[in-house]
């Protein structure tokens, strides 16, 4: 694909490119290597260590390497979407390893379950950013110089430039030159006026902020990375499931889970307290195609920032978290907590209260367990009892006769459980999942005919377990809410850098970098007329260059047509004026 418009222009164009070393993304960012560099290409001679390092650095900061690393980054990001990730789906990871006994350990060894913090992913993006910095900093230095540079001298033969237009105007060369200067100034060009024999020329350039935008974009990406990295060091998050009527306090020990960055600790959590007053949940009940779709999740809470501080009422909804001095509390889930009372064989109430059952399906088929380690049976012997089962908010049966929930709201609540006795394993000192029952040392309670004893209860019902194990009562149903408490510093900085990057990107893509030259020459024998030439050169593809050149020509023609009768407009701003009696040769062409 030819991006240059004619071979005879290549020299001029390359001079343009390498003289500045800075197109949107075009050059490879190196200040042009001086051709006199003691060519390491001196043959097969081994490179000195320093020379070798320099070679490596030059390779790393080259555009090709950056492009390769960028592609590698895209490829390396893919496995994170195909394998479950520990940071957002830990149970998925466990399931995957269980389902793939051969591949599982390998994926784990290759850090495939935490791709985005893996050594190889980190290596790619760190190399990419080092390459980026190594590329951008020299360019920034060059660009600072370019910002102060004057437009290059007017070439001798403007007709050789990619865009060229000329006309004869009825005004003196001075008037025409002044009109050209004014027209270019109006178009926000930086310009120099050169006096030449029999007229003069204007050299003008604009669009330096294309490179400014480019540098801003890349440096902002570095800033964004630093903000994200710093944020992850100091961030923490915790989760807690709260049933209606109970609360959540800023003491990490009471939470279901807590994880923090390297420099975050449990002491950073503000000493807040929160009480869940009401959980408002609504599902689509009208429309047949959308039936059961969630419509509203809202938790009415009372929050106090610290003990003794005033209590305020708030509603935490999805998309509407509560803010606590840089810490955000959001609603991450909800479900049902059947209120269960258990009286043991001696008649004593061992447990009475809501037990959260975790929803497994869109219709809230929920599973849960009740662990009762301190019961006494009818004979007065200590016994450990475990209950495991499902809660169905709107019980019905599916085609195979299995009880399922047909709707997520409470239409026909039903609790179905089985009972176990034996060792619950709570005395081992090993932390247990409160939502799972380890039945390895438990025996299932049977109904005397070899079948598991089934507990089926609707609210208000009680059932006596066999073998004098006591009575289970299903009193009512409460709701619970899961809260996610999270502190992520550096968010604002990350957003600012992201927006700066976007601004830089827009500048670097859409600000055209153009040079325009205007030459005015006197017409022999007619002091009131002059010959006008306008030419343009752009960096890269620039569809607007022709319009720019033609626009300048038209503006000068219009101005001289009006001004020819009047006087020369007074200059109002001080531009540099070069008096040049020579031929007006440019360095490019003169050498």
């Amino acid at each position, binding site marked *: 694909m030819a991006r240059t418009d004619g071979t005879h222009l290549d020299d001029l164009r390359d001079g343009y490119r390498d003289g500045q070393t800075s197109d949107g*993304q075009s050059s490879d960012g190196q200040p042009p290597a001086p051709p006199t560099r003691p060519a390491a290409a001196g043959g097969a001679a081994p490179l000195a260590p320093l020379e070798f390092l320099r070679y490596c650095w030059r390779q790393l900061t080259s555009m090709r390497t950056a492009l390769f690393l*960028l592609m590698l980054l895209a490829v390396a990001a893919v496995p994170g979407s195909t394998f479950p990730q520990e*940071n*957002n789906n830990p149970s998925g990871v466990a399931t995957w390893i269980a389902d793939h006994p051969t591949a599982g350990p390998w994926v784990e060894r290759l850090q495939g379950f935490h791709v985005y913090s893996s050594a190889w992913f980190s290596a790619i993006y760190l190399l990419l950013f080092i390459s980026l910095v190594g590329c951008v900093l020299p360019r920034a230095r060059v660009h600072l110089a370019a910002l102060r540079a004057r437009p290059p001298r007017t070439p001798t033969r403007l007709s050789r430039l990619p865009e060229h237009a000329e006309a004869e105007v009825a005004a003196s060369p001075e008037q025409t030159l002044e009109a050209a200067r004014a027209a270019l100034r109006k178009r926000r060009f930086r310009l120099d006026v050169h006096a030449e024999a029999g007229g003069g020329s204007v050299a003008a350039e604009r669009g330096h902020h294309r490179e400014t935008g480019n540098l801003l974009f890349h440096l902002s990406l570095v800033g964004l990375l630093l903000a994200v990295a710093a944020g992850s060091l100091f961030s923490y998050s915790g989760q807690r499931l709260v049933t209606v009527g109970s609360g959540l306090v800023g003491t990490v020990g009471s939470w279901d889970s807590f994880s923090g960055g390297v420099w975050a600790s449990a002491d950073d959590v503000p000493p807040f307290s929160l009480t869940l007053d009401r959980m408002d949940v609504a599902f689509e009940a009208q429309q047949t195609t959308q039936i059961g779709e969630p419509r509203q999740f809202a938790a009415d809470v009372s929050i106090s920032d610290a003990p003794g501080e005033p209590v305020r009422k708030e509603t935490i909804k999805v*998309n509407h978290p509560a803010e606590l001095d840089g810490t955000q509390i959001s609603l991450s889930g909800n479900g049902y907590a059947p209120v269960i009372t258990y009286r043991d064989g001696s008649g004593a109430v061992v447990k009475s209260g809501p037990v959260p059952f975790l929803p497994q399906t869109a219709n809230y088929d929920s599973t849960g367990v009740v662990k009762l380690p301190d019961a006494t049976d009818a004979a007065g012997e200590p016994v450990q009892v475990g209950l495991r089962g499902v809660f169905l908010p709107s019980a019905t049966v599916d085609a195979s006769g299995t009880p399922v929930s047909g709707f997520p709201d409470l239409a026909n609540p039903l609790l179905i459980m089985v009972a176990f006795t034996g060792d619950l394993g709570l005395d081992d000192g090993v932390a247990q999942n409160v939502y799972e029952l380890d039945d390895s040392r438990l025996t299932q309670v049977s109904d005397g005919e070899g079948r598991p004893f089934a507990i089926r209860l609707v609210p208000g019902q009680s059932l006596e377990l066999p073998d004098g194990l006591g009575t289970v009562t299903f009193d009512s149903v409460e709701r619970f809410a899961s809260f996610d408490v999270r502190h992520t510093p550096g968010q604002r900085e990350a957003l600012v850098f992201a927006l700066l990057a976007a601004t830089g990107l827009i500048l670097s893509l859409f600000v055209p970098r153009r040079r325009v030259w205007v030459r005015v020459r006197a017409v022999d024998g007619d002091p009131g007329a002059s010959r006008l030439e306008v030419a343009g050169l752009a960096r890269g593809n620039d569809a607007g260059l022709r319009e720019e050149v033609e626009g300048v020509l038209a503006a000068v023609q219009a101005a001289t047509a009006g001004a020819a009768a009047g006087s020369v407009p007074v200059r109002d701003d001080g531009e540099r004026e070069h008096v040049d009696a020579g031929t007006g040769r440019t360095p490019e062409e003169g050498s």
Partner: protein
Amino acid sequence: MSIDENIAGLSNVLLYSAMTAYLGSMIGYAADLADGGKEIRSAGARREAAAAAAGGSPVLTKTRPEAPPRRRRAAAVGTSLFVLAALLHVGSVVARGVSVHRVPWGNMYEFALTGTCVVAIAYLIAVVRARRAGLGGGRDVRYLGLFVTAPVLATLGIALRTFYVDAAQLVPALDSYWLIIHVFVAILATALSTIGFSAVVLQLVQERREKRRAAGGDVRGGAFMDALPASVELERTAFRLQAVGFVMWTFTLIAGAVWAQVAWNRYWNWDSKEVWTFIIWVVYACYLHARSTRGWDGRRAAYLACLAFGCILFNYLVVNIFFPGLHSYAGV
């Protein structure tokens, strides 16, 4: 608020009408391209014959002769029908929004409906701008007409067939004003990338024809390609579209991160949809860099643009449906 079923029905009727009009428009544009190809061929043949008659050797200085000014009646019919179709399409989108009292991009069907509408409007703006600028010949963007109507029709067909859901209220997770911003920017980005992809494909085909012709070979079939601009021009058009698309993807990511902070309590969670949008962004960044890396010509960069569009399709069609993640409530 309840759903207005009548207006929702009206939206569907308008969409069917729009699709009929798009079909007519597509036929018009196809006929125009066929005419154009034929005409250019016969003009070339005439010129050769004239040159041969004059006794000189038939020297073709240009591989592509200047498009002779002709009245493109079929293209005019195509554009008229396209305007009608776009109006009906806009009506359908508005009716859908009115019936559900919210912005009409709450699920995959609505995303496709609104996204194709944006593609159609973007194309019309390009046509009007080209006409106002008085750009004739190769710069007339109506050559893209067939390549806009065809994907629009295909997308609408797939959306109606596979993703259609009745008008409904939003699930709470989507009930945020960020839906308006984030998803709309994503729609714009997808639309621009789609048009850009059309231009890239045309560029690649045109380039191959030019190369074969330059090598003295014969190019058979696809005469309509001769009615299109040269590959250099197509490459520029594609680049401009992709560049704007890339900016839109950037804003999609930023707006998505801001919304994620509000909705999920963290601005970046490596959710599968986030990962794939990030991949799209990186591949487009590769395209923009490759395009201006020495040693990478427009052709190789164009393959990257195709890859990026493949990622977009994958993100919309595969990730939404088959990958579990926080975005999967979007509803089929």
